[in-house]
């Protein structure tokens, strides 16, 4: 029977399908643009060669893939301890009076535009690194990791906080009742119980770190070279795309789309792995 219920249901179904169709459309369009270069160079060369010289027909993306993973790792190394620490503090240890403003501050941090953080990184962080470490340039993985760490921290904190809050209070009470100290309780009871949620938080942080473009581009150099140390410039998939896409044509442009496709696949793999991790466990 066609009544209001039916109309609402079908309309919302259409909205939901737009999301699915949108993803399919993006993947199809990107693959279409990427196809010429993948056909020419072959995925093996693209994934495993570090020789990027489109003028001579070389499309090795290894430098950028390495850059993406290294900056993601660096961002996680800095962001995850900060975020977890904050989440544990907010849910387990702080008084209500402090928890309020700190939570708000973390939420506001999540709202800071990435270009502002990138700009601050470029104008304040890089010169400081240059001075403190005495290096020539100051750009590089160290600056990028700090910038990314600051950017993914609010995301991870928010989700980890929810995960920790979801642990039944009975667990905590039982642990303390058995004589455990607060830290023992946190370490051996609450954290393992909230493990899935924390893993989800970290994976979403990874997703954000991989996709971050402008802020990383400003502090990474960038430069098409493997990083020789923490303070030499390098490239990631995102920064190379944004650097070259403006004026590129032909096969080189197609190769940039191939990099975009790779990024899409990595991001989708990360999101799907969230599903995998939380499938059979209790507190999904």
């Amino acid at each position, binding site marked *: 029977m066609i009544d209001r219920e039916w109309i609402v249901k079908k309309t919302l179904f259409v909205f939901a399908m737009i999301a699915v169709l949108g993803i399919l459309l993006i993947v199809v369009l990107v693959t279409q643009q990427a196809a010429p270069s993948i056909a020419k160079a072959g995925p093996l060369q693209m994934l495993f060669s570090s020789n*990027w*010289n*489109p*003028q*001579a027909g070389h499309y090795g993306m290894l430098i950028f893939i390495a850059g993406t993973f290294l900056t993601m790792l660096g961002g996680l190394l800095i962001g995850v301890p900060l975020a977890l620490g904050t989440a544990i503090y907010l849910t387990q240890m702080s008084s209500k009076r402090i928890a309020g403003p700190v939570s708000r501050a973390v939420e506001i941090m999540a709202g800071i535009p990435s270009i502002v953080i990138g700009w601050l990184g470029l104008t304040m962080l890089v*010169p400081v690194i*240059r001075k403190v470490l005495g290096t*020539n*340039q*100051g*750009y590089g993985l160290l600056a990028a990791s700090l910038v990314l760490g600051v950017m993914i921290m609010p995301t991870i904190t928010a989700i980890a906080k929810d995960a920790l809050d979801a642990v039944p209070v009975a667990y905590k009470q039982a642990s303390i009742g058995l004589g455990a100290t607060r830290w023992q309780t946190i370490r051996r009871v609450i954290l393992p119980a909230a493990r899935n949620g924390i893993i989800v938080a970290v994976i979403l942080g990874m997703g954000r770190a991989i996709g971050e473009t402008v802020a990383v581009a400003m502090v990474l*150099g*960038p*430069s*098409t*070279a493997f990083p020789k140390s923490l303070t*030499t*410039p390098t*490239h990631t998939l995102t920064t190379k795309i944004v*650097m*070259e896409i*403006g*004026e*590129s*044509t*032909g096969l*080189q442009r197609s190769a940039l789309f191939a990099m975009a496709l790779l990024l899409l696949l990595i991001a989708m793999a990360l999101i799907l792995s969230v599903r995998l991790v939380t499938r059979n466990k209790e507190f999904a």
Partner: protein
Amino acid sequence: MNRRSKIGITATGLVLVGLLAMSLALAGCGSTSAKSLSGKLTLSGSTTVLPLAQEAADMFMTDNPKTNVTVQGGGSSVGVTQVSQGVVNIGNSSRDLNDTEKNLGLVDHQVAYDVIAIIVNPSVGITNLTSDQAKAIFSGTVKNWNQVGGPNAPITVVIRDSSSGTREIFDQKVLGAAKTAPDAPGAIETNSNGIMRQTVASTPNSAGYISLGYIDKTVKSVSLNGVQPTLANGLNKTYPLARYLHMFTKGEATGLAKSYIDFVLTPNFQNVVVAKDYVPMTKIPGSASSTTPTGK
């Protein structure tokens, strides 16, 4: 909600939609009478040409208030591609057409002459480089400033992205490449003249190259083989890093595009605006706006 208010809301909605449709239709129409120039004109392409095109657009729109001229960047390659596809009316380019682009049916309008200078961070203190030194620095074979008469510090090379028209002419004239040379190892990439200037200005011991019009007090330009990068030297060919700036149209320019390009080529615009940063076409003997008797 009762029946009357439903009708009222529907009616208001229809009126609003009608007004919106009417205003969109009117905005799309452009009068083609020569007396009152109106309509939309879009340009895109080279970031070197962009400041020039933007200033011409502003002056053109002041003279012809019913027109709307928008200028975007994106680089020379983007400009050529977009004008050939009809995405924009005029494509700006700071390089000549390459072989694959020569068959696109584009008509060339040379609008200015540009000089590219090698710049260094003020901390370097070098004032001149020979061609061999410049080539060695920008290909990465020379890595320390003390090998070319500067302080003992490692050189940080700053280059443009690989599709830049500015980079292409630099690589061809200085590095001797056929088109664009491969990235110098570890060179920092920038994708516009503005970011190039900012990077060289803020990174100690760095060297790069930039369009003459973008040089300011934050960077130091360097002479090449003793020849200063000036407009005069570009014109008399003693300074090799020089090129024409182009505005391409698909086929002969017509209508608003023709009026705009004619405006850009008027001696007044050339001598007053173009001459600030580039060599105006009035000084190029034999060009469309060359005022031969007075061109000096």
